């Protein structure tokens, strides 16, 4: 952990309670310089609480949080010059126009790049002459995004920044984040839009009930989960069902379908080839599957069938079983 002081965000054992609710329960999170880090979890999992502690708006009950090498509570002002933040639920001053709000927030951070601001307003198709109270949710979000992206801050903290944006603007947003990443800026992107995270993020952390349950590079994480195999074979498939690492096996005439753990994939495919496949479809694990692995039990409790949890195991036990 000698290089730890250089990580832009470093959080360990964070605990925060609101009354009797334990919003964060020993959360660890590390974001490396220059990466786009996806912060995944449904509403109420503790994403916004974590971010607000990192911004010094809330004070942690226990644990350690370092932001750009400083203490987010004590050094808030100094640190805030180097970061830009987009809240998930943006409320604007009803009597100020969007343009005024952008300028105000930029100046309070310590300066405004007018050319970049105007360029971003164009790209996001934002009418800056309208008063805050007349903006739709999406437009309020655009105001906050333009104010943050125009800032050239070295760390962007975005809390579900595109919840109200249409697909066109979502594309513009992804373009902007890709540019920011290319410029070497660090981004913490809290989201529950998995496609967005899959496209933009180098690494992800999945939060559940106030703690991180999965964290790592997206490519690594994919190894941890199951590939779906569908095949039509010359000979009827036998003996695959009981193999370790095979889950949710179904067979119908000459067709089979099952999930297989990443580390058993080679062996299972070799066995499958013995039955002479005519067609073979292999689908890599998606982030959605990864996500549902951790939340499958919650859905199952609500009566929603989940693929990842289809074999009846508690989904979060992982691959050890």
């Amino acid at each position, binding site marked *: 952990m000698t290089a730890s002081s250089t990580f832009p965000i470093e959080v360990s054992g964070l605990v925060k309670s609101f009354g009797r609710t334990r919003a964060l329960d020993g959360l660890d999170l590390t974001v490396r310089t220059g990466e786009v880090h996806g912060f995944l979890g449904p509403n109420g999992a503790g994403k916004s609480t974590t971010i607000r502690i990192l911004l010094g708006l809330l004070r942690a009950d226990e644990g350690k949080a370092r932001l750009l090498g400083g203490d987010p509570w004590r050094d808030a*002002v100094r640190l805030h010059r180097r970061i830009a*933040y987009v809240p998930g639920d943006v409320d*604007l001053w009803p009597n100020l*126009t969007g343009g005024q709000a952008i*300028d105000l927030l930029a100046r309070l951070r310590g300066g405004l790049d007018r050319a970049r601001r105007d360029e971003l307003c164009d790209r996001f198709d934002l009418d800056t002459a309208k008063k805050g109270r007349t903006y739709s949710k999406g437009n309020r979000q655009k105001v906050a995004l333009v104010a943050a992206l125009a800032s050239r801050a070295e760390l962007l903290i975005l809390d579900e920044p595109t919840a109200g944006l249409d697909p066109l603007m979502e594309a513009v947003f992804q373009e902007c984040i890709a540019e920011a990443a290319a410029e070497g800026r660090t981004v913490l992107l809290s989201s529950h839009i998995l496609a967005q995270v899959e496209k933009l993020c180098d690494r992800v952390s999945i939060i559940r009930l106030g703690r991180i349950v999965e964290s790592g590079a997206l490519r690594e994480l994919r190894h941890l989960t199951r590939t779906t195999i569908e095949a039509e074979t010359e000979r009827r498939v036998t003996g695959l069902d009981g193999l370790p690492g095979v889950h949710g096996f179904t067979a119908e005439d000459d067709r089979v379908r099952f999930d297989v753990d990443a580390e058993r994939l080679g062996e299972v495919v070799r066995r499958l080839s013995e039955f002479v496949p005519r067609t073979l479809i292999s689908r890599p694990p998606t982030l959605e599957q990864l996500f549902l692995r951790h939340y499958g039990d919650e859905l199952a409790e609500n009566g929603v069938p989940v693929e990842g949890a289809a074999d009846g195991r508690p989904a979060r036990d992982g691959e050890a079983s």
Partner: protein
Amino acid sequence: MAVATETGTATGGRAAGEGGAFTGTGTLARFMLRRDRIRIPVWLLSVSLGTAATASNLAATYPTAADRRSRAELVESPAGAAFSGPGHGLGDYTYGAMLANELLGFVAIFAALMSVLLLVRHTRAEEEAGRAELVRAGVVGRHAPLAAAVLVVGGANVALGALMAVVLGGSGIDTVTWPGSLLFGAALAAVGLVFTGAAAVTAQLTEYGRAAGGAAGALIAVAYTLRAVGDMGGGAWSWLSPIGWAQATKVYVDGRWWPLVLCLLLAGGLLAAAFALAARRDVGAGLLPPRPGPRTASASLGTSLGLALRLQRAGLLWWAVSMAALGAVYGAFAGDVRDAIAENAALQEWVGSLPGSSLADRFVSVITSMLAAVCGVQVILAMQRPRSEETAGRAEPVLATAVSRTRWLAGHVTVAFAGGVLMLLLAGLGAGAAAAVSVGDAGLLPGTVGAALAYVPAVWIAGGTALALFGLAPRAMPVAWAVVVYSVFVTTFGGLLRLPGWMNDLSPFGHVPLLPGADLRWTPLAVLTLVAAALVAAGFAGFRRRDLDLR
């Protein structure tokens, strides 16, 4: 109210045609009554019981015909007329004539305010919030929401009139008769109906509830001013004002009903106009297009102080004008005060107990104490702003920039506290100038300004209390109002009710030397300033330590 007739059409699906435009009115009216099941009764009870309490208070304060005659002389002067009414029945100033002259116009403002606030709340404010869209997408006619709101608010006015008639008629005060009380209530309801119509029109014009309410509120102010100007002069201008019409009924004196016909005609005309306008616009849209604002922020909008000032600018302006005007109205009485209290023993005794060589000095010290309490209200209101910024989520993005909590809060505190000084200064200038003119003594102007400014530390304690609560226990912020309410109570009734001295000492306003008559003692002012400073320090320290209240 016509509630029962509509359910048939609502389910019958006759959406087209003339009848369809009002489909669902009854259901909506019932829904509005459900939403206002607390609000409307509170309005009705507070206005009617407040009026009844004031009426019986008048009877207690002016027990003899001689007392009432001196009162009549006071309200007969132009300044008195501006504050009360046209002065019907001053020759034989009975309690009834007093109610009609001094109370009716004033209570009519509240009936008008109730009508405007309720109507805008159920029409334009609903559209602005987007809820009206949801309602109109159901089996609901184009005119149904406005019609239902008019029914509910009109019904509230009728109920207010009836309740007023009952509490006044039943009060048993001499000369306050049952027929007169019925007319009093009817006049009140009639004014309320006019402003129901006025608000129905302004609600069609702009897209925003606040603007619609503000425009209708300005009409109330215009109506009251027309009446005041008219009653100070020959009375011609009063005939342009619905409040003037209500007073023209000469209730408890002659008791004529026909001026109320003017109210009903105007209310009907306004409602017809409102429905005609409503038919010409889209849901959610106004007839006046919203004006675009500046695309970039001016240089002043770049600091937390600049932001706080920008947010409070309009409010400060209104308060400044109002405080100067209020001061002038109070000050204008300075010349009449000698005659007014000449024959009232209780008032004489009270004023006599105040320090000061001249009667005018003593009067100035009384009015500045009242004006100072109003300035305390302004400071506490201004201190609510950081709280509303915090709970609305607008403090969050600002505090995520390079603005410290101290600096952010300091912006709002500076605006609130400097605003308090400004209001005291303007109230003192207004009162001093008017008093100097009415007495003919230029020395009253600096004396009154000084007397008002002596209240700066007391007003800061009021603001400091709100600030300390904001930092330490933000949910308890309304408690700050207790400072002002208690002070007003002690200041207003301390002399008349002969309250013990310690009750006065509990009020920060009670320690301020009663300038210009009393000696200027610096010690209490210094102590008050220290208390205010301690409260401010506690507020800042608390806010630096606590979590933000976030959505």
